[in-house]
């Protein structure tokens, strides 16, 4: 195996808010090699975006936040860098695609300005050179009439088109790691597919590493190599995508999969539900954070936090590296489960 391009070790992000400290990311670790795609899934508020931003270094130690643990990108500790050095990473090393293409483009700047200023800053190319490359980038992400689009304002484009622009900007400096934070949540289904396909093909072409953040399990399922399921700031389960979705071991993952209506099921099929709501992150429950909603919880779960432990390879046919944080993981009942 090649050495990992991204190493995240016991990452913990704490926000200091007036209501108290919020531990939005609580001891997450993972590795990612070039060409690999990692899916981060979980319900709203479970810390996916904060994790993405902390990995990038956009959230770092400050008056309002404390970050511990380490993030190494290409061997460099992101949080040990000076701000100006870190800025130099953003673009050529790490790119980011945001959830909402409506708000992640400056409404008063032309598309072209967004692209060229990034190129000028990082590659030091001249304006005309940057413009040429910008047009190329737009073409590459499948935008027709790219040259004309350069002079348009974001509001003059459709949502899907805008998201393509955002991707083009993120990829303009050919980063080696792309963090896509729910890149398709705001888009229509038909467009969503196009964008996900686009990202997948770009990652493949450029041999990039990508973190795909999503709460849509379906979106992650087809397009990632590995997946991490998060709940209340912690990783509850991780492993090869197919393996996790086909036989979930954590009660949360299992319940989540069961609560999604499937096209294959006949109409009026009752869905499985997870009762209750995710915990308030300022006052998380003791022990396992999923305990209050968990059907399998025992007394023990309320006291001791389960650690993310690897499952024995024998237990996980097909793929290795499965990890689960549960005292009472679901035990395989043969091949009947899954989709």
């Amino acid at each position, binding site marked *: 195996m090649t050495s990992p391009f991204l190493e995240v070790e016991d990452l913990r992000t704490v926000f200091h808010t007036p209501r108290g400290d919020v531990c939005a990311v609580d001891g997450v670790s993972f590795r990612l090699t070039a060409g690999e795609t990692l899916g981060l899934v979980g319900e709203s508020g479970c810390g996916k975006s904060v994790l993405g931003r902390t990995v990038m270094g*956009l959230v770092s130690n400050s008056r309002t936040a404390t970050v511990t643990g380490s993030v190494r990108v290409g061997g460099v500790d992101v949080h040990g860098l000076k701000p*100006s050095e870190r800025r130099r990473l953003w673009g050529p090393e790490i790119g980011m695609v*945001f959830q909402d293409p409506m708000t*992640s483009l400056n409404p*008063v700047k032309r598309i072209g300005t967004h692209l060229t200023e990034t190129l000028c800053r*990082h590659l030091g190319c001249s304006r005309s050179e940057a413009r040429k490359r910008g047009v190329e980038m737009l073409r590459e992400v499948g935008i027709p009439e790219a040259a004309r689009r350069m002079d348009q304002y974001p509001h003059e484009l459709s949502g899907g088109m805008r998201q393509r622009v955002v991707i083009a*900007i993120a990829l303009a400096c050919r980063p080696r790691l792309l963090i896509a934070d729910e890149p398709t949540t705001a888009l229509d289904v038909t467009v969503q597919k196009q964008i996900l396909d686009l990202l997948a093909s770009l990652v493949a072409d450029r041999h990039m590493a990508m973190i795909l953040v999503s709460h849509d399990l379906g979106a992650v399922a087809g397009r990632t190599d590995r997946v991490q399921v998060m709940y209340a700031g912690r990783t509850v389960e991780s492993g090869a995508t197919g393996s996790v979705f086909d036989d979930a071991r954590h009660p949360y993952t299992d319940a989540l999969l069961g609560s999604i209506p499937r096209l294959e099921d006949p109409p009026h099929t009752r869905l499985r539900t997870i009762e209750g709501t995710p915990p308030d992150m300022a006052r998380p429950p003791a022990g396992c954070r999923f305990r209050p909603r968990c059907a399998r919880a025992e007394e023990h779960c309320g006291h001791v936090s389960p650690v993310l432990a690897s499952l024995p390879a024998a237990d996980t046919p097909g793929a290795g590296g499965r990890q689960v944080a549960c005292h009472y993981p679901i035990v395989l009942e043969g091949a009947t489960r899954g989709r």
Partner: protein
Amino acid sequence: MARRILVPLLELLAVLFLVSVGVFLLLALVPGDPAVAVLGEGRTPQEYEQLREQLGLNDPMLVRYGDWLGGVLTGDLGTSLVPPQTSVLDRIVSALPVSLELAVLGLALALLIAVPLAMWSAYYQGGRVDRAVSVATFALLSMPSFLIGLLLIAVLVNALGLFPRNEWVRPGDGIAQNLAHAFLPALTIALMEAAMFTRILRADLVTTLREDFILAARARGMSPIRIMLSDALRPSSFSLVTVLGLSIGRLVGSTVIVEYLFSLPGMGKLVIDAANQGNYPVVQGAVLVIAVIYVASNALIDRSYGLLDPRTRRAHV
């Protein structure tokens, strides 16, 4: 398309019409006989009566209003009752540049103070500077302009002798002199306005800085200064521009206190003096002109958003 230009225009005209009616009526109710204002004391009752007749003061209100409005529409705002009996228009033409200069200088100074301050405190939101700026701007906003003016005069003119005493020098008589004399009054205006501008711009900047596109710009590796200047400032300036526009219109008539304190021959002083002398044509004319400026500047501001925000540009063209 025609509708979109015509309707606001008609509304503007309606506003101006109402202002003219209001001003006319109000001043018609004010005690004090214009004939006395013209002739001064010590004339025979017949003389006053004769003049009243001559001025049309005995006509019904509607006729008088009609006459006045007719004059206004043909560019004749009447003649000052109290000598120097120059035409009202002349008086306004000589007073307006003073007020405009004060307003423009004051606003320019205010922006000069407010923009960097707001950017600084928005960037270090919640920090020491931010808190200090917040308290200081509040303190300024809490001080009536006459107190600020009195303080500035007491300190800068009387105690330190840094600036020349009141009196106005027209730009035509030397720009340097003019600026030296205009500085203190402009500063008084600027301090008030700067406090307001700072708060408004800071609040908008803070909101903008929370936007995704700022985060996105950071994620592209842009430097903080560049982000503040080229990404945050423009989208945050809509409220400021609105207030700025309102201020220009408002200041032309609202520098009263400052003009009074520094005895500058601007619109405010013109109106107050005229009001004190019972010189109605001047008051009416001046208020009407101020209203026109206010209404016009507002309309211009409304139309200028397109320059700042391309999203609205299309809708206006």
